[in-house]
């Protein structure tokens, strides 16, 4: 439930490039106009006239990030007014630096950049009338815009030196909130980050990094790395936010998994099946396990059948399959789903451990919280007639 709020952003969430940057100003005699645009004439005069009320708005809306999406373009701007009775013919200089994207594109990530670049321009204007003075400044501005549009689209970061000012800009991609990390979850490092040198990470990450192996759960990582559990959780959450780790349920041979509708993509996508065969191999020197065996293993996962039972039946070692890696790969690519066990207290007044049996925490979670083994909990529940177990 907590995921939903930030999962969604405008326009199908696809990101688009910056198509154009322009500076619009309120000219003392000519009114609203575009004074500098890169590439030239991307926003035509007609279009600009239709939307100029949002580009140079009433003073009330100055210094707000204002995004208008109409006529098939999306303009992100930050209207600014600088008041100075001596300098300006109309006692104030109104301008707006705008980024233009496609109307379908997501543009939140540009908002801080637009604001920051505007602040630089305000500074330059206040110091040297960079924007309002007639002359070759426009050319310089055009150069700046050209660099910004090129660098940000290609590298998402740029540094520009103009006179005494150095402009630093960076696009930070806005991602959905990371999941809540709990004691019993297992972080799995994604392949792309395996070879990152250790000293590139922050201090906490450096300390816990050797223990992230797709098998250890958070509480164990904390104990082994001798780092406080909450610190580990925050660190892992951070890594999850940036897509460095993937959170999986803990792996036990008593776990029950079921295959999902995505299992068919293992057959449909040859690249995926190659990757899978390589990943799940017990001994990478021998021939990789056949896709038939791997598929059969996944296919036999269903409600009521534990991983142990499947291993006993299919003997994965004989086919060079590492069942743990197989499970991890399946979970990661959503071929399979872990079916968790939830004890629910159905009596009237819960006491002691019964208070934990709300149906919200799974067996693993309860084990981690209480420090008891699943067997103990199991016995506890078996004795208690007021507790029902639900698998889902």
């Amino acid at each position, binding site marked *: 439930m907590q995921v*939903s*709020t930030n*999962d*969604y*952003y405008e326009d199908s969430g696809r990101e688009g490039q910056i198509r154009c940057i322009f500076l619009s100003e309120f000219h003392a005699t000519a009114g609203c106009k575009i004074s500098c645009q890169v590439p030239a004439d991307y926003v035509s005069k*007609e279009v600009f*006239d*239709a*939307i100029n*009320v949002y580009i140079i708005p*009433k003073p009330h809306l100055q210094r*707000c*990030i204002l995004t*208008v*999406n*109409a006529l098939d373009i999306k303009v992100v701007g930050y209207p600014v007014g600088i008041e100075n009775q001596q300098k300006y013919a109309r006692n104030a200089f109104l301008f707006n630096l705008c980024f233009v994207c496609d109307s379908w594109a997501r543009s*939140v990530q540009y*908002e*801080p950049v637009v604001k920051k670049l505007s602040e630089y321009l305000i500074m330059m204007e206040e110091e040297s009338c960079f924007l309002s003075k007639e002359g070759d400044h426009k050319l310089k501005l055009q150069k700046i815009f050209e660099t910004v549009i090129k660098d940000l689209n290609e590298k998402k970061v740029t540094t520009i030196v103009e006179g005494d000012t150095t402009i630093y800009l960076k696009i930070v991609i806005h991602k959905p*909130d990371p999941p809540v990390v709990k004691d019993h979850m297992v972080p799995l490092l994604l392949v792309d980050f395996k070879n990152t040198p250790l000293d590139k990470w922050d201090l906490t990450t450096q300390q816990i990094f050797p223990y992230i192996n797709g*098998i250890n*759960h958070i*509480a164990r990582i904390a*104990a082994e790395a001798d780092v406080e559990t909450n610190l580990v959780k*925050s660190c892992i959450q951070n890594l999850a936010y940036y897509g460095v780790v993937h959170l999986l349920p803990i*792996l036990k*041979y008593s776990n*029950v998994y*079921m*295959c999902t509708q995505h*299992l068919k993509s293992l*057959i449909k996508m040859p690249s995926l099946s190659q990757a899978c065969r390589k990943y799940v191999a017990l001994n990478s020197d021998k021939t990789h396990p*056949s896709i*038939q*065996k791997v598929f*059969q293993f996944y*296919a036999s996962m*269903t*409600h*009521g059948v*534990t991983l*142990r*039972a499947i291993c006993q*039946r*299919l*003997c994965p070692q004989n086919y060079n399959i590492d069942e743990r890696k197989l499970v991890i790969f399946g979970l990661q690519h959503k071929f399979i*789903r872990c079916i968790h066990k939830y004890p*629910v207290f*159905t009596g009237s007044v819960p006491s002691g451990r019964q208070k934990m049996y*709300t*149906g919200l925490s799974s067996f693993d979670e309860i084990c981690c919280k209480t*420090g*008891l*083994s*699943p*067997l103990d909990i*199991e016995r506890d529940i078996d004795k208690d007639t007021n507790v*029902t*177990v639900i698998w*889902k």
Partner: protein
Amino acid sequence: MEVNPIAVLLVYMDSKGDRLLFRYPYENVYKDKTPLHSMPLAASAPVLNNPPLVDVAMSSSTTSLVSQVSSDTSRKRNPYAISSSDELLQTAPPPNTAPANVFGVYNSCCNTVPKGQLEGFTDEVLSTLFAVKQQLCNQKLELKVNDVRFVSHPTLIPRNEHRNSAGNTSNASNTSNTSLPLAAPTTTTSATIGTATASSLPQPKSQPQQMLINIVFALHAQASYSIVKCYYELSKRLGLALRFEEQRASYCTEETMLMARTHDELSSQQQPLERTFDAITERCTLAQALKSIYHDLCTTGLLNTTLNQYLTVSFCLPQKAHQLHKKGSMVDPEVIDRCLSSLKPYHGMLLVDYAELLDCVPPRAARMLLQLVEIYTPLMSLQMLASEADMSIEHVYKMVSHLVYWGKATIIYPLCETNVYVIAPDAPLHTKSHLVEKFSARFAGMSLFDAIAHFSLPTSIGHLTTPLQQSARQGMLAQMVVWMLQHHLLMQLHTYVQFMPSDLDDFYGGVSTMNVAGSDYSACSDGVNEHKSSLMDLQEGTTTHSSIGVGATGELLISPLSRSMNVSDDELNAGSLLSCASQPLPVPHTSHRSITEDRYSGGCSTASDNIVAQPSSSHKSNYSMTASISTENCDSIASIEDEERIKELLSVFNDADRAAIRRIPASTNIDDLSLLVKLYQAGYFKSEHHLEEIMYFQSLRPAELLQLLDKFRDVLIIYETEDPAIASMYNNK
């Protein structure tokens, strides 16, 4: 909630200027933030009609409160007053502080919308923003200011000028019908006078005067693309409805005039703006409609608003409407479309909400729907519904789609005894869930948890009842299953088939190793297993005692040791390997198909035992069978025609596959083989179609299909999962 609108605005523009005629909600938008000391000043300023005093008011209230004062006095504002730059909106933090430092809240929401109210936007600002230029009319307009997103469809409406007298009479009848407040008749007459004067002005006759009506929804900026799209759709629909009503009965002209009059009237009496909007809500049916639209959007997400007592605008916000039976879920229209596009004739419909069923259609369209609902039962497929109701299947699809979109129905596979259900992964089953009480209210004396615990393992209704206590209990059970399906607590599992012969190397290699492994295994399985498991128990015990918190989870830690996996199974399916052949219950594959009186009966008990691939037995039997094939071939060689026919049939497979099929004894039977080839060619063995679908489209009996699958089990892999069409409506995380 990001789904709810923050506000709805009505902006009007004609040749004489623009105005925000109505906004809702308007309570608290103005009063809360104005400090008490500045209130009397601001209020007294217009009374005295003394510009300098207004200036005093403006300059005395310095910081963020200025905008409020200015909004109250905006209409009388002194043109020479200095505009303060410290206005409310600018003090708001930027909406997207990048998550530079990490451990905090990520997408911190800034507040121009505290308490879900649209604050800091004066009527004047809003009206200039949304009285758009001609070029922007009749298309989508989206504007985001900090964390508020405005979406609208500005609609140009040609003023209906030929109806002065007629409009008057209809209006009179309207007022008598609805018993408007006393002020109404006088204002309406003046309104018509207004139009009369307007039309009497010298104007180019060819161009009818146009007005712009813009119904704007203010939303939270985080609202998803699809939510924004829905609100845009609603704004567009309302605009079209208003244009229609203007053509028919000059509705817009009258309503906008009435609103404008009320504004003028009350502001000349120095009434606060809330009072003005109160009066407008009392007098104008359009304002009432907007108010009810806002409330419906915030509560149910389903609208059925009649404009001018004539035109009904119905609209559904699925993201909201689908939360009723399951709180917290958010179903985007795209998801519903995906579900509906994969609708098949064998699917069924399950009505969720009988009582308010007909809300979703305008009364005139209800007849067809009633016809369908009358004959409906959850046992029927759409195909059956269509033939019973004497409609085309496309027509039924359309109506079902409509019901599903409006959250009145869900798609299921028609209820029957043999359907296998499990608990849905996202089922909100916890002690605090409102469903617990709802369930016991519906089924007296029953506990939801006890009832649903049966479905922890895949189970069918047929399986839960015995022939002896049949009818009553079965009826009850069916009712419960229906209830749980309505609340998305259960999910149906289907069986899928994937054609996958093991290649030759693998086959022989597998057999040789398999035999070793098998013997190895059988040696240790019975006696040693016990022994080892007790050993493991001991180990677990010691770890429990020695370690702190972490290690204490005993089994949670997988040491390389436990990979020998001989620990005895502590679950319900104890010793599942050994018992799976003899004792069908715990293994779902075998359980649901061996029910005696179900559709799958006949010959399937043999099928079921072996339907799960069991290499230890099947491979061995394969091995022995390859030996026997040759003899069988000799027998059947008598009919050379058969042999040629088989060759012909097998030619659809590639060499490796053909060899694998050849090894199966059933491949010599022409009937079996041709059925296999037929299904293979039709693409049914690619994990895309479940057994029910194959049976439906190929008109096969369950027994036929299951026998075939069993005969060719060495080249087919069978597994169970949910129907993607139906599962897409569940919130799979």
